[in-house]
């Protein structure tokens, strides 16, 4: 039995997971229209590679990755791309983003699927395939997985000792990973072995919270069936035990230092759903075109659905049969999720759960009161921060201090807001401060670039001036040196300064061009009928007249 460690803080919100685990994952019906955003991953948005009107097959690339941190986007089913434009997406801003609208043809016909054995492929090729299959972290961060699988050359810690599979799923209401582990444990375990071989990790730990006994049993079975030396570890249920840093701490006792990545301490962590889709991508050649999503909350039939990326959320919510008093919707869990601007937005790779919310389930928070410095937030903060101080700095826009107090170590888990007796929306202040700081850093970079360019331009102008002056001086000198040698009588043109010769040359060139122009006759006027010739003459005459008129128009001085 492995010794487990504890991370600091944590809370125990009611789980509410049972209702949505009563029925197996079912496939959501094919919607009438799919809206596929090109930005579904962290980093640069994908670049569209299809045009309006194109017929695409299921799994065909429609957006290719641009830049290092980016991923691909695929057609979720076969059909026709009817529009590529800005559509509302699931983003806290409610702003639209570039999406492709696909009208399915109902055949659900796959594009070429190349199944392969990962053991026969080099890691480099596997990474490329994962990138082109659009595999990103399905736990919610949607960070491209291929980047997390890079070899650690030029790195102080040159190898990954431990690969962790994150099946903790600590957030209340969400059960998609739970159901996936129950039903598709074999694929997850095989995927884990594939990732392990890519990373050359020594051990694999699968962390699952103890509120999912069925999933734990299923994973145990799959590991035993596969004959693999993986360890399925039951971890205590505490929010946010599924945070990467927290799970690493619980399983290994290692602390990821502030501002560092897990790889810096020789650990890498993947969500179980990500591992499963990576396995599908390589072993079955299926890019990420669907995901399991929990539909729960104020609905009659909560459950998990395997839905195509791009399915309008309203159709998924309808599958759960929402109760009439549903008044809003949350994407993600109640702790870290976000209110949806509208239910017409499409399902994206990051959508793990959709909660129909009603007042009786999620009562509106009472108005915020001043902070009484009770330090309860600091007691529960898993990142061991001082949220009340961070709040103070964020509220007064004292961003420098907020950063000095490790604002960027905050994982936005919401545990502090959850316990705050004054109901202060602490996380919102932290998000505000973080995005403000990020923006400022960007502005600063832009300003530095502008300064550099401006200084270079001044330098260039200065240099051009100097060079011109030098050239002139040199010419003058040469002219003066040349004069006494050259007997005036021999000179063709006695006052030929370099400038006038240049002008003469230009004049000569212009004349030559004119001669040439005159010599060339219109090519298509040879065998024309008399009628046509007369017409041409008439047109020429008209043109001449107009030229005359234009000239006389210009001549009178304007006042």
């Amino acid at each position, binding site marked *: 039995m492995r010794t487990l460690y504890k991370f600091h803080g944590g809370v125990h919100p009611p789980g509410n997971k049972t209702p949505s685990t009563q029925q197996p994952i079912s496939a959501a019906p094919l919607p009438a229209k799919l809206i596929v955003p090109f*930005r579904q991953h962290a980093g640069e948005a994908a670049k569209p590679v299809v045009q309006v009107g194109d017929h695409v097959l299921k799994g065909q690339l429609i957006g290719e990755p641009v830049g290092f941190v980016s991923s691909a986007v695929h057609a979720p089913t076969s059909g026709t791309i009817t529009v590529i434009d800005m559509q509302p997406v699931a*983003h*806290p*801003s*409610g*702003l639209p*983003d570039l999406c492709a609208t696909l009208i399915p043809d109902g055949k659900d016909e796959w594009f070429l699927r190349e199944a392969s054995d990962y053991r026969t492929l080099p890691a480099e090729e596997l990474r490329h395939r994962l990138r082109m299959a659009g595999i990103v972290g399905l736990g919610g961060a949607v960070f491209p997985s291929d980047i997390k699988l890079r070899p650690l050359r030029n790195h102080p810690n040159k190898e990954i000792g431990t690969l962790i599979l994150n099946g903790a799923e600590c957030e209340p209401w969400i059960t998609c990973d739970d159901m996936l582990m129950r039903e598709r444990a074999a694929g997850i375990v095989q995927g884990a072995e594939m990732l392990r071989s890519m990373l050359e990790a020594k051990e694999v730990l699968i962390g699952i919270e103890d509120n999912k006994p069925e999933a734990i049993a299923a994973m145990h079975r799959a590991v035993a069936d596969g004959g693999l030396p993986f360890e399925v570890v039951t971890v205590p249920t505490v929010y946010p035990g599924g945070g990467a840093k927290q799970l690493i701490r619980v399983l290994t006792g290692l602390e990821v230092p502030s501002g560092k990545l897990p790889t810096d301490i020789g650990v890498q962590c993947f969500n179980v759903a990500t591992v499963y889709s990576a396995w599908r991508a390589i072993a079955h050649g299926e890019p990420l075109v669907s995901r399991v999503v929990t539909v729960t909350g104020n609905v009659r039939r909560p459950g998990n659905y395997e839905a195509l990326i791009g399915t309008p959320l309203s159709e998924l919510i309808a599958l759960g049969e929402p109760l009439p008093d549903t*008044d*809003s919707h949350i994407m993600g869990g109640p702790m870290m999720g*976000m*209110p949806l*601007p509208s239910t017409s937005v499409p399902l994206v790779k990051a959508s793990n759960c959709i909660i129909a919310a009603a*007042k009786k389930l999620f009562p*509106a*928070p*009472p*108005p*915020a009161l001043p902070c009484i410095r009770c330090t309860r937030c600091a007691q529960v903060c898993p990142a061991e921060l001082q949220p009340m101080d961070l709040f103070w700095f964020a509220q007064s*826009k004292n961003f420098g201090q907020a950063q000095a107090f490790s604002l960027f170590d905050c994982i936005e888990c919401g545990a502090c807001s959850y316990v705050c007796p004054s109901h202060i*929306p602490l996380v*919102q*202040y932290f*998000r*505000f401060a*973080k*995005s*403000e700081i990020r*923006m400022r850093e960007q*502005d600063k970079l*832009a*300003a*530095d*670039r*502008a*300064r550099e*360019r*401006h200084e*270079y*331009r001044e330098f260039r102008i200065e240099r051009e001036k100097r060079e011109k002056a030098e050239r002139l001086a040199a010419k003058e000198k040469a002219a003066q040196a040349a004069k006494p040698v050259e007997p005036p009588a021999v000179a063709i043109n006695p006052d030929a300064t370099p400038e006038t010769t240049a002008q003469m040359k230009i004049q000569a060139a212009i004349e030559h061009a004119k001669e040439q122009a005159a010599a060339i006759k219109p090519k298509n006027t040879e065998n024309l009928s008399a009628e046509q010739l007369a017409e041409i003459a008439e047109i020429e005459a008209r043109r001449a007249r107009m030229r005359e008129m234009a000239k006389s128009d210009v001549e009178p001085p304007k006042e």
Partner: protein
Amino acid sequence: MLSALLVMSIIAIALGAVLGYSAIKFRVEGNPLADKIDAILPQTQCGQCGYPGCRPYADAIANGEADINLCPPGGEEGIKKLADLLGVEFKPFGSGAEPKPKAVAFIDENTCIGCTLCLQACPVDAIVGAAKQMHTIIASECTGCELCLPPCPVDCISMESIGENLENWKWRYPVYALQPANTVGRESA
């Protein structure tokens, strides 16, 4: 008595010499205060402050010749930072010097006659083109200074406001007071 005076004056002369020497030897190139001020200024290089660029304005502030509230692109934030740095009171903008929303220049490429006049006006070389060739703007480098607008003889340059998109969107400052409780989350998000 005399020897004491002598010793003191020798010490004074020696220290004076050291100070004088180090003043020459360790002389700081440029003006460090102006550098700090320049680091705060937005580098739009628009000249709205009345100086031919950010650096000259920074020099003028450092020399006490200019006020701190003359740079509209820097916004009130900029004034606050300058006030902090210089230890003076915050001053609001004077009339007519309000900051504008961020924008980049856009050249209507069908109208451009390739006169190169805008090219010469751009302080950050954000316009590419050559004589009689269509010109275009490198949007990522354009600071939005508007200096290229007046020289264009065919008025083909316009300023396009950048607006809010998913790349530059920021979380709002949470506002809670005096709002119906059920819209709180949405309004502030």
